[in-house]
């Protein structure tokens, strides 16, 4: 049995989500290779080669893959999938973008966002916004899978001694072009990798009030998130969104402020180690999953909390 993992990276560094995908692959057993598709990504390939338990690294390093446009990288991945039983990637914005294309090119289904592995054909995944866990069985010979990173503990980034093999050739579908990007510059940790997350919901009332979370986030070295309701209301950008249709997080400490606790939000954070809820409505469903609940008006509780830290 052989698995090919498509690395999550930005040409400069290998992202930790890759380590969770490797963990899922190791649960399946067999050889695990990593594919790095990018441009000027030698450092990433080297980092992939030192992941514990990795057999080999393929590096498709070409300028056509610089921005990992799905049209181009999916052609490269589908090409290299020959000889593998599983093709896997972390269910990040990137993985979600190109993996279904890979599956369609291979004429197989994709099993999205798996949270458990029963056997080599049977997987567990959340459906209906996490209200239900489904066990599904694939009959495809080659399986294309995306992995919910919070469901698999990361393997060690060091300890491996795989050899990096360069892959020749370049696939340019010629139908898409990268124009630009606006990446939020922040000194805070990334939402999906932070050990503390503080999120605001509709109770924050407007976008400006999110600044009340910043002081606390600074003191706890926390990332700032939001519920879908807060994103829907235009308080904060979508990349803040924690939930089934946003980011899935599992920090050591999750602080939910002014969040009622809709299932779609809970699906994105209920695997956090410790959950704190601050809400003035004592019947809010968020208290049913919170380890520590504080029934209070957030506009008085937040300044108090910041001062107490």
């Amino acid at each position, binding site marked *: 049995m052989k698995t090919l993992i498509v690395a999550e990276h930005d040409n400069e560094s290998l992202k930790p989500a890759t380590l969770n995908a490797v963990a899922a692959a190791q649960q399946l057993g067999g050889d695990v290779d990593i594919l790095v598709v990018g441009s000027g990504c030698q450092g990433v390939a080297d980092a992939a080669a030192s992941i514990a338990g990795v057999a080999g690294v393929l590096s498709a390093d070409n300028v056509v893959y610089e*921005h990992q*446009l799905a*049209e181009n990288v999916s052609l490269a991945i589908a090409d290299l999938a020959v000889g593998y039983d599983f093709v896997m990637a972390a269910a*990040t*914005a*990137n993985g*979600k973008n*190109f993996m*279904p*294309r890979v*599956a*369609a*090119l291979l004429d197989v*289904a994709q099993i*999205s*966002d798996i949270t458990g592995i029963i056997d080599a054909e*049977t997987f567990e995944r*959340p*459906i*209906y916004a996490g209200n*239900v*866990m*489904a*066990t599904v*069985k*694939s*009959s495809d010979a080659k399986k294309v899978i995306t992995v919910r990173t919070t469901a698999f503990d990361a393997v060690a980034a060091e300890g491996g001694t795989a050899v990096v093999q360069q892959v020749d050739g370049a696939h340019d*579908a*010629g*139908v*898409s*072009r*990268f*124009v*630009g*990007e*606006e*990446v*939020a510059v922040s000194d805070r940790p*990334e939402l*999906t990798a932070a050990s503390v997350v503080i999120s605001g919901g509709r109770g924050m009332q407007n976008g400006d009030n999110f600044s009340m979370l910043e002081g606390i986030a600074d003191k706890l070295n926390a990332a700032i998130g939001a519920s*879908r309701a807060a*994103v829907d209301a235009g308080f904060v*950008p*979508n990349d803040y*969104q924690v939930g089934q249709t946003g980011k899935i997080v599992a920090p050591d*400490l999750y602080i939910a402020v002014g969040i009622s606790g809709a*299932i779609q939000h809970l699906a994105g954070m209920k695997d956090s*180690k410790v959950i*704190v809820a601050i809400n003035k409505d004592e019947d809010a469903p968020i*208290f*049913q*999953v*919170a*380890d*520590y*609940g*504080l029934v209070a008006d957030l506009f008085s509780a937040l300044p108090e909390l910041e001062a*107490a*830290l």
Partner: protein
Amino acid sequence: MKVLVAVKRVVDYNVKVRAKSDGSDVELNNVKMAINPFCEIAVEEAVRLKEAGTASEVVVASIGDKSCQEQIRTALALGADRGVHVEAEGRPEPLEIAKLLKGVIAAESPDLIILGKQSIDGDNNQTGQMLGALTGMGQGTFASEVNVGDGTVQVIREVDGGLQTVELTLPAIVTTDLRLNEPRYASLPNIMKAKKKPLETFSPSDLGVDVQSHVTLVSVKPPAERSAGIKVESVEQLVDKLKNEAKVI
């Protein structure tokens, strides 16, 4: 420019879906059905393109049993011009839906195809991308802004950590994210008018597709419960608990 929008009939956003007690499937008897919210955003975007004079016609397609004609009518009431229903029994998988939509594209030759990024039942987030691969078209997934140019479309995409802008050659595929627009409500006169708008039905074989199954549902169960903890009385007590009991700060 012709725009094709795909819509899916799903359990209404407000319904809390549960696993059946025998774990065979989810309980879908007598629950309210609706257009998938992301698909509704797709319809709205297409209608706005028409109102802006960019699009000349909006065709809405849905795949499923007869009942999904209801959702096509809803899309027509929101401003789409014409409906295409591909009749398929059971629950066609994303790859098969993409193959059927490819057949609709072959018949309709749209310049832009807009879909929701995922449906709130299966949460797969696959169909648009698969359609892109099958047709060789470019894709702008998780779109928060769509700007049609001359033979191209620029799409601002919601990605991890921010926004990415890509330019695609038309025809192209766009999948919608939450912030793309806020869908309108259908007015009563428009709901009445929608009943008279044309709606054609095709079978998979009309489109040259033999629908396959790749994945079977073995069982379903409720998610692991997380038990409620304690209520603290004050911020001071909260900080104390986090420091000394949970030891997370």
